[in-house]
């Protein structure tokens, strides 16, 4: 125990300063990011940096995307989105569950699901 006390005594004032500064920085970063536009009623699905789908969260549906190691299945239901199936070893992306804001990433299969801007119904051209 005395070893611990010794170690604690070694902590300098600069250590504390650094600690406080870093905490302030990350907390303020947290607030900054809350304001970041990662909310909306559309979600985009990208694989390997390539945008494959931009789906409206108002339409319940399931889509599949092909990544380098297999097929990742994404489901939209009642305004939320989640990854239901993915070939990655840890299945961390699936465990994230439903999101309405932010993003889900499946790193091994290079899939990124991001909540994005609102679908204004604006189009570049009309057929008909």
């Amino acid at each position, binding site marked *: 125990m005395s070893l611990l006390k010794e170690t604690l005594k070694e902590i300098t004032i600069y250590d504390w300063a650094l600690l406080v500064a870093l905490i302030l920085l990350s907390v303020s970063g947290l607030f900054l990011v809350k304001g970041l536009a990662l909310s909306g009623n559309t979600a985009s699905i990208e694989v390997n940096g390539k945008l494959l789908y931009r789906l409206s969260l108002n339409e319940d549906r399931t889509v599949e995307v092909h990544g380098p190691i297999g097929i990742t299945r994404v489901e939209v239901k009642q305004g939320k989105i989640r990854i239901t199936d993915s070939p990655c070893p840890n299945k961390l992306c699936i465990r994230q569950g439903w999101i309405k804001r932010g993003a889900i990433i499946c790193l091994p299969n290079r899939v990124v699901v991001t909540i994005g801007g609102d679908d204004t119904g604006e189009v*570049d051209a009309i057929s008909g």
Partner: protein
Amino acid sequence: MKRFLFITLNLLLILSSFSCNLRKEETYRKSEFLMDTIVTITVVSDSEKKAGDAMDKAFAEIKRLGQLLNSFSPDSEISAINRNAGISPVKISPDTYTLLEKGIEVSTETGGAFDMTVGVVVNLYDFHKKTHPSDALIREKLPLVNFRDLILNKDKRTAFLKRKGMSVDAGGIAKGYAADRATAVLKSAGIKAALVAVAGDIRAYGLKPGETPWRVGIRNPRGKGMDDIIATLELRDMAISTSGDYERFFIENGKRYHHLIDPKTGYPAGGVMSVTVVGPLAVYTDSLATALFISGIEKGLKIAGTLGYDTLMIDKAGKIHMTDSLKNKITLQPRIKTNKDK
């Protein structure tokens, strides 16, 4: 000292990873009245000059094709073919040949639902004067509608209408073909992303600035105004065309007479309000939209599936039918208003 440099370099590397893209890409849009309709081209480019030059080239190509393929001007090759119906084959340019060839291909694949020779019956209807032909007149002219009587000779590059009185009308396929050709011109002019809209026949490729895909709307067949759309979808290296009973029509005694005439009966095809086809080439989406409209919902969906094209069909009741693979790509607009009429 070396250590310090090493560390600084490391930090700089990390910081620079957040720097943004330097070259500014913008969209440029231009419209011209060609092929008897409004043609709008939108390109993405980092140089206004490059965009302008490319668009000019594309418009020139569409103009050239319009002159070859339109049925109205006596100088066009189509008119020449019609003038010589039952007389002799006419030598045509490669574009016209390719167009007719593809038209016949679609006719064959759709069992004659698309038929470029149907014009002779369509012309019996006058959508300005709001008149339609008698049953007897239709019966008389109907035998002249037969795509099999349009003979193409590949070696001589000629087209021949076997029977006198027959006429070929490229209207249902020429705009799609023009959109494809314009796209090719833009690509060879170095444009990385563009959208070509020849009226409702649209072809798009590449991505807009910000890596966003082109978005296209499908018109509400009973909507009010030009912006009333029932669905949107993203167009990634795809073409889209729509045929509807609202483009040229009149209503008489509660019955709608429109320009999509069934080549087999001579009467406007029923059961459908509009058909949208999505696929890689506009020449096919254009002609197939007509063909599927004529074929009706059930047969239309089947044909689309066989040919590997996607379609969205709206029946007379306003109900939407889609091919399965289109369901995940379409965003239906929440308000789908259709007026019920015949």
